[in-house]
């Protein structure tokens, strides 16, 4: 199998399914000073960042505190966390899904690296 075939296998189901798959979903709520993460089938989501010492990765001997940055699940499949109290600055962050899987914020196009992983960067103004 060459690269072209692999790419076709990947995108063919989408192409034959019609263009409605390309219409973006509307956010059902105001984002405000919150981080939003849409993952309806997650059982737990935490936001770990420079602002909370990555949940203890660096400060507590590598043990991630399972309650640090815990996001709240809404009925519409969104997970939310308030970030209004964080002081101004530039911070890296990522979502820890189900306690073990790292995912960058798909709603944030700015990225950086933490421990060889692509994570998101947020600039919080005063």
């Amino acid at each position: 199998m060459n690269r072209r075939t692999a790419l076709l296998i990947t995108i063919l189901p989408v192409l034959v399914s019609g263009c409605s798959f390309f219409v973006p979903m509307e956010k059902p709520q105001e984002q405000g000073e919150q981080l939003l993460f849409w993952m309806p089938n997650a059982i737990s989501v935490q936001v770990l960042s420079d602002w909370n010492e990555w949940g203890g990765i660096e400060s507590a001997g590598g043990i991630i505190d399972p309650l640090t940055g815990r996001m709240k699940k809404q009925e519409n499949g969104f997970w939310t966390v308030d970030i209004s109290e964080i002081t101004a600055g530039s911070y890296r962050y990522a979502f820890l899904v189900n306690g073990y899987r790292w995912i960058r914020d798909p709603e944030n196009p700015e990225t950086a690296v933490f421990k060889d992983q692509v994570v998101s960067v947020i600039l919080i103004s005063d």
Partner: protein
Amino acid sequence: MSAFVSVLLVLLAAPPDSTDIGLVPEGWTMDWECLVSATGNGVWAGNHPVIDSTDVDAALSLMAESPEVDFLVTGALMSDTADTFIFRRARAVVKWPGTPWIGTGLYLHDRQPFIPGLSEPLVEWGWVDIDSLQGYGFASGGILGFNGEYIIQQAGADTLTQLNIHSPWMGFAGFSYSRVHYHSAESPLDDNIVLNALSIRSDFRYFKPWVLIAGADGEKDRWAVAGEIRDFTHFNTDLGEIEVVPAVAFAGKEFSAPGDAFVPDQRLLKLGAYLRSVRYIASAGIIGMLDLGSDSLSGVSAIAAMVSESSIIWNIEFDAYADGDYRAMFGAGTANSFSSAGIRIEMLEDSTRLTGMASCIPREDVSAELTISSDVDGSLDPECGLDISTVLGPVSGLIGIHWEQGRDVTFTINLRGLIR
């Protein structure tokens, strides 16, 4: 180890409200918590599993708080330090009653060096092993909104000092200044690190410049400057607002910092365009980079993600550099409340890898995820992994099984939790 377990048992046996038995003075609250992580790694040999390694780590914290004073003590017991109980951190903070942000404090064994940059940090967490640090610090904050801290620590035979000062927002600007000095007792002078960093953010109504200036006590060629202009140019589209961000990042020939913010002698001009949607679940960004010093940093980076109305999650990432390196990733998947499935293709200069994923939630607190991946260019190198994870309140657990061609099946079991 036995002392640690004894303390934990006493704490667990204590009544939930210690004030009932008169041990805690009136007006004080006391609390404790213990983070525990137990991990086992092994292989499937013959017809039975064989455990290769086990690790049990724990961190116990005791807290006491009154309206005027806060105390915290944390110790850790780590398997890789031969079960030695390590005094991790302690602090005493005096507060102005009723205003938690005005106060001063003494810290022991605390604060790793970390200096944020504009995107990548100038000094990275973990640059110095926290277990090798012993020292104390003084912090004060609240007066006119300023706060600062001074920390002096021993790292083995070496000395590490840190000074951090942060200003409040002063109407049109705010700043942070950090100084890190790592003095090696045995190494030549060149191995000492002196780093001063001044970060200035300002608001000129029509645009917001952020500037970072770093240097090593005036030493020639040991300097760096980075800056970007925010909120200057916006374009409205049907999907959302596009912000164009011009940025520069220059560094002297001998500049070095324990982070990824700069490489020596870089002369980097950047122009980024970022789409953030208020209305839709969609984002996109493209950055053009031109390094006037060499080709290694010149290139284009693009990223896009979207969730469609039919719950398809799209993800595209692309990086290409003038020296020929490139990486591309395309992913698509679907998710609902009980399951998800997706496919991802990653292309590097010399390989293309196809990955399929599926997950389900057999119970509301258990997730099972299956991943199968393979190269599509000749060698295949297939891999397969199954991860079953659970989160029950403050406890999370993982059973992971992994197989790749030519190797034994390996497995990991991890249990992590917070006891309080």
